[in-house]
Every structure is written in structure tokens, then in C-alpha cells.
């Protein structure tokens, strides 16, 4: 028989060693389909590393990819800490992006130091609304937020498509369903010259630092953790559970909305309905991988972005199908998630005599 027991020891070996080991296992496993596809394995991996660290451009692309993942990862992590299952970051991301476009494409003409904060504020507010509504349905009527947030994603995306064909449609867009471009003074400034990486990354890291600090040191964070860990004891101790949940929902939604703002006002400049290749859902993986720690979210977003960008670049360089890149990505994620599990738990083998 095999039993699963939590590890009592908290060695650095497990915290740092296990993820690294899992990454190696992932590379070994992913080499099988690469080999079957006829690509030389070692060179493929060198290409993959080059795709992330090979040049300033490659590295900046990885950071660009990591930025929205940090926001959606934080959105998931904070909500999950309060046991509020926000699966709707994808929809909230689009709400944030729509608000950014509505404000930033000429509706208000203002210098950057006014317009940019306005865009961010409206984007966050829109994302916030997208999570507060299901949270109210949960606290008031007991509606399961997994269902409501997930379904809201589809509603919001259809709403987005309507907006892009209607009110938000770019009159100069040659009929394409896309918004007008955001004014230059409404764009998040780039971080490096001639690179796509933008100041949204800085905002994301600052958000993570603040979230980390607030969770550990503020009364707000205390209440959020208490409600998440044991709602009965929290209520008994006089913590206003519904307030706390709504607060967590507002912040979570705002962060997801910020992901949309950052993509549209930092990277693309205009909004289309394929702005996000599932950043909202990937944020859940980022958060789980990070053990719901905000600082951990930054690291795991960097890791996942590296795998994405590296695998992409490798498939192009080696001329193998881009599905192989997806395969590498998913193998790595699975291995690291499983590795994380073994970092926290151990399997104990007991034979029939019961000896350990």
C-alpha cells in the first residue's frame, strides 16, 4: 500500500531543488516527441534557451510575455487565498481592456500624466466590477462563483465582439473588428528602446510586492487569510466575512483588469478579440505554481513565459511543428506541478506486514 503524508520538514532542498529537478524531467520527457519529429534534441534545447536568453530582444520578449501573466496570476492568487474561486480573469481582462480603449482613444484628450492614470483607473474599475458582481451573487444568494465567473467569461467575450463591431469599432480600421488605437500619451512607456517590453512589467512587480506586504502585514490581509483558511472561526471572531470577500473580489478583478490595460495600452495599442491567448486561465496555473504567494507569482510567471517564448522560438528555428512547442509547455507545467506536490508531500510505502 502507498500512503500520502505531508512532509513535516521544510528543507531548502525541497523548496528550490524540486522545481529545478522537475524542469529537468520535463526536458527529458519532452525530448521524446522532439526525437520522433526528427529534431536533434540537444540543439533544439540550445535553441530554446537562445529563444529566451540568447539576446536582449529574446529576453525582453520573455518579459513582455510574463507581464500579463503576473497580473492574472496575482488576481487568481489573492482571490484563492480568500477561497474565492475567480475563474473569470479572462473576462475581467477584456473588461479592463475595453475600458482602457473607451477612455484612451480620444474620448478624453489630456496629457499623459492625467490620461494614463485615468486609463489604469478605469481599466481596474471595470475588471473589479467583473468580479464584484459574482462575489455579490455568492455572498447574497450563495451562487457558486466558479460557475458564475466562468460563464461571465463567455458573456464578456461576446459583448466584446459586439463592441468591436459597434461602438468601439475603428472607423479607419478598413472594416476589421478592432478598436481605434490608444492615443500616444495614453500608452504605457516602453522600458527599453526598440523593444516591446513596457512599464506594465514594473507595475506588475510593484503590485506583487505590495500584495505580498499587505497579505503578511496588514489587517486587510489578516482578515483575507483568516476568511480563506477558516471562515467559521473568522466569523466567530467578529470578522465581517462578506466585506472581506467583496474586498478580495474587487482587488482580484482590478488586477485582472490591469492585465487587459497593460496588454492594450502597453503592447498592442488597440483592442481586438484575440488580445489574450488565455492569459486569464494561465494566471490560475501561475498562481497554483506559486503556491498562491504574490512574490512567487512573479517567479512562476517568468518561468512560464520562458517556456512559452523559448519553445516557440525553438519550433521556428528547428522547423518543427508549433504543436511541439505546446507539448513542451504542457509537459513542463505538468512536471513542475507534480514536482511541487512531491515537495510538499511524500509517499510512504507500506507492505502487507506494514513495515515502512
Amino acid at each position: 500500500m502507498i500512503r500520502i503524508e505531508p512532509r513535516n520538514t521544510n528543507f531548502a532542498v525541497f523548496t528550490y531543488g524540486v522545481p529545478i529537478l522537475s524542469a529537468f524531467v520535463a526536458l527529458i520527457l519532452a525530448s521524446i516527441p522532439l526525437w520522433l519529429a526528427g529534431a536533434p534534441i540537444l540543439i533544439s534545447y540550445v535553441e530554446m534557451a537562445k529563444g529566451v536568453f540568447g539576446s536582449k530582444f529574446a529576453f525582453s520578449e520573455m518579459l513582455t510575455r510574463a507581464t500579463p501573466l503576473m497580473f492574472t496570476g496575482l488576481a487568481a492568487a489573492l482571490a484563492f487565498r480568500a477561497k474565492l474561486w475567480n475563474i473569470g480573469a479572462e473576462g475581467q481582462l477584456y473588461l479592463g481592456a475595453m475600458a482602457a480603449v473607451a477612455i484612451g482613444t480620444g474620448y478624453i484628450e489630456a496629457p499623459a500624466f492625467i490620461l494614463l492614470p485615468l486609463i489604469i483607473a478605469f481599466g481596474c474599475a471595470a475588471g473589479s466590477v467583473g468580479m464584484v458582481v459574482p462575489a455579490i451573487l455568492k455572498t447574497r444568494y450563495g451562487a457558486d462563483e466558479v460557475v458564475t465567473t466562468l460563464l461571465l467569461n463567455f458573456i464578456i467575450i461576446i459583448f466584446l465582439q459586439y463592441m468591436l463591431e459597434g461602438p468601439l469599432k475603428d472607423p479607419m480600421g478598413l472594416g476589421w473588428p478592432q478598436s481605434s488605437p490608444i492615443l500616444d500619451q495614453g500608452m504605457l512607456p516602453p522600458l527599453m528602446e526598440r523593444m516591446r517590453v513596457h512599464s506594465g512589467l514594473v507595475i506588475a512587480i510593484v503590485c506583487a510586492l505590495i500584495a505580498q506586504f499587505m497579505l503578511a502585514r496588514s489587517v486587510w490581509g489578516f482578515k483575507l487569510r483568516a476568511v480563506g483558511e477558516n471562515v467559521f472561526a473568522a466569523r466567530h471572531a467578529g470578522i465581517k466575512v462578506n466585506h472581506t470577500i467583496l474586498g478580495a473580489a474587487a482587488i482580484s478583478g482590478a488586477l485582472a483588469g490591469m492585465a487587459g490595460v497593460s496588454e492594450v495600452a502597453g503592447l498592442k495599442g488597440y483592442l481586438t478579440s484575440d488580445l489574450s491567448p488565455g492569459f486569464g486561465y494561465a494566471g490560475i496555473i501561475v498562481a497554483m505554481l506559486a503556491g498562491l504567494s504574490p512574490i512567487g507569482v512573479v517567479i512562476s510567471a517568468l518561468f512560464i513565459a520562458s517556456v512559452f517564448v523559448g519553445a516557440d522560438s525553438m519550433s521556428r528555428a528547428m522547423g518543427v511543428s508549433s504543436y511541439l512547442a505546446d507539448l513542451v509547455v504542457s509537459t513542463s507545467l505538468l512536471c513542475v506541478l507534480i514536482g511541487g506536490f512531491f515537495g510538499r508531500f511524500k509517499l510512504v510505502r507500506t507492505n502487507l506486514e506494514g513495515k515502512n
Partner: protein
Amino acid sequence: MTSSPVLILDGLSKSFGSVRAADAISLKLFRGEVLALLGENGAGKTTLMNMLFGHYMPDSGKIDIIDGSGHAKPLQLGNPQASIAAGIGMVHQHFTLAENLDALDNIMLGSESFLHLRRNKSQAIQKIQKIMNDSGLVAPMDIAVGRLTVGERQRVEILKALYQDVKILVLDEPTAVLTPQEADKLFENITAMTKNGLSVIFISHKLREVLAFSNRIAVLRHGRKVGEISSKEADERKIARLMVGEETKVFSKKELQVGETVLEVDNLTISGSSKRESLSNISLSVNKHEILGIAGISGNGQTVLANAISGLVKSSSGQIKIDGKNILINDPSNIIQAGAGRIPEDRHKDGIVGQMSVAENMIIEDLNNSKIQSRGLLNNEAIMRHCSDLSSKYDVRGPGPNASARLLSGGNIQKLILARVFEASPKLILANQPTRGLDMGAAADVANRLLEARQRGSGVILISEDLDEILSLSDRIMVIYDGKLRMAETHDRETLGLMMAGEAA
């Protein structure tokens, strides 16, 4: 009693890390006897029983089962199935029932073959009915276990063990949730069943029942067996000394003049979804310098009464006043601000946030205190100091202020809650089953703290199913039955027991 042994534990040891939870314990159990296993929390009783039941693998030692013909057979260790097959049944202190299934399914669960396509429920019901008749343990069979009271659940647990035709039955704190009459009946029937060859090991903290109903007493302390005496030769003092290594201090209750009213509950009615979640027209008052004891069998409305006073449930009608001021019902923070301290019935669920640290749990009701926080940020230094002050003052022992509170033992969790409650110098203390599951030392500590609070001028409501506790601590006693409260005019076990059973005294 000169009969043959059925079970021989030989030199069983088990260590957890550096802690020797069981240290070369040897014990014999004879056919048809009741062996009481006594010891403080952490003395090794549960560890020993878990080894017997195959949940733990002993580090060394062996267990022999002697069958009907007198042959000793070594028990396969660390294998619950082997223990079940050998006829060992255990009723745990924390129940192991599936809450969404009814009692009948729970009882049949595990004793049916997977291959039986048709379940013979009527045969099972007949068998259970017979056991019920024999043992006097009655519980509804067709209601989901989650909706049964704690007392009823325990009866289902015992019925389940009996249903599996056990030869050796281990009862972990069986009477904690029973009325005195029920407990007496349980022991009567256990005595009757032992005549048919059942051997019983029972774990208890209540010396009175241990002395009255067991044949032999084995005492454990710090993982070792420190004594084994025949119950006839034992007395309470002797056993207590063996258990704690010294004589326990008996608390003294001073006569005090009661002060003004601190809590007034006026015609409180709550219509819950079931009878046991309802209260009808409850009125009570508690004064300063007074302990009001509320006795009753579990499931008669104690939980909902405590929840109402704690601000956890909404009332249909009626008022709760603290210090003459109306309290907004359904808001615990309101009640805390009005000066009420609450010791919850289920300390693991309502008392602590297990994943958070000991220090954080100490301040969880005190988040608005300017010593704890300023401008929404916690003052970690002050929290740590607060925690270490309270830990030494209330003797909370554990792996330190930063450790998760779930790592504390039950007694220390209760001390943490006591520290939180008493440090706020509350006007009113609501203690719901404050000593349930605690060892003698910790229970005495709780009792002393309640008496101290009474002396200082708090009004105390003590809700307990332990009649001895109610009798020794209370100034006035009320009995709750079927959601109604009645004042007890005389304080004797007989009258109270009858009132608890719903009969007019």
C-alpha cells in the same frame, strides 16, 4: 475475574520524531472484562489504541490475539483490515461517519461485500434493532448522519462496531456526550454484553464512571504504563495521583453576592430548519459574579442558543440585551464589542484558524486594538510580545508563536482561546462545552479560570453535558430540553437527569 486473556500487548513502542508516544507498553485484556485506560492527554492512550487498530505501525513490540480455543495468534501489525478481521472494533472520539449517508448505510458500510448486488436492508435493520434492544442505544436510522446530534452520532458509531460482531471493543471517551442516565445505561448494557464474551477497553477522563464500571484500571503517563490496579482497590485520589503524578487541586467556589444583570435574553425564538436548530421563547438572565449552568443532552438547542448569543444566527423574535443595551443579533463583532467573550463548542472549527500562527490566533478578535495595529498595518512586535505574555500567563505550550495553531494539542488550543477570552476582561462569558475532550489538568484549568472570572465580576453562562461540571461550578442551573429552558429548583443529579430527559421533575 479468572478467565483467559483475549489480547496481549507486549512491549509496544512508538516514537514520533523525538517524542516517545508509547514506551514499551504491555497490557493484557481478559475475556469479558472492562478495562479502563486512563491518562492525561498525550499520555499515549490514543497512540496505543491506534497501534492496536492497525493505524500506526509500532516501532517494536507485538500484539497477540487469543482465539476461542486458547491459541495465541500474532496480529498483523499496521494493518487495519487484520485488526477488523481479528474482531477488534473501535469507536473514536472524533467520529468517522460519512455525514451524507444515513445511519443505516453508515453501519452497513464496510461490512458488505463489494460483490453483493442486492443489499439486504431488512435483515440489517433486524440485526440493528436487536442490538438496539440489547444495548439501549437508540438512534434514528433513516436520517443523514450530518443532521444527527453529537450524541446520536456516537450511538451510531457504537452500533456500527457492535454490528460487526466485535470481540474486543475500544471506546474512546464514550460518555462525553451522553446524559448520566444514558451513560449508566450504556455501561449496564456493556456489562451485560461482556457476559456474552465481549471484552471492552474504554478510555475516559471521568474517574467516577471508571471506578463504577470497570473491572481493572491501567494508567498511562508520558507514554509508559505507570500502574495497573483492580477497580475494587482503587479510589479517585489514588488514580488521580497515578495519572498526573500528584494530587489534583480541588477548586474552591467562594460565596459571592451577585451584582446587576449583564445579560438578558427575552423571549428568544428561533425557527430553524429542524427541531434541534430551533428555540422557543427562551428567557434567561445572568448577573455579575454568577455562573449560570445550562444542562442538557446534546441536540436540544444548546448549539443554537450559544450561536444566538454569539451573534451567529438570526432570531425570529425576541431580544438579547447586554448591560441593558439591545444587541444587534447576527453580528459577532457587535457582541464582542459589547463585552462578551465566547468559548465555542467546536474549538477546532470555530475557535482557531488552524493554518494561521498561534500569535495571529491570539489577536484575531482584537484587530481594532490600537496596540495591535495602526492605520491598518499590524504591529508584529507587539503581536509577538502579546503572544509570549499570554502564552506564559495561560500556560499555552506548543512549538512557538509562529507555528500554525493546528499543531497545538486540544488542551493547548483551549488555553489559547481562554487567553483570548479572559484577557479582554469580558462582562459576559459564554462557555459552550468548555472542557469536552480535555484531560483532567486542562479541564481543571478551565474551571478555575471560569471561577476566577466570576470572582472578578463577570457573568458566566456554562453550557455543558457534563453534569458533574455543571453541579460543581454553577450558582443557578437551567435545563434545556427540546428548545425550551427550565429553571431547576433543586440541584441533584436525579432531578436534573429527569429534566434532561424531558420528564417533569
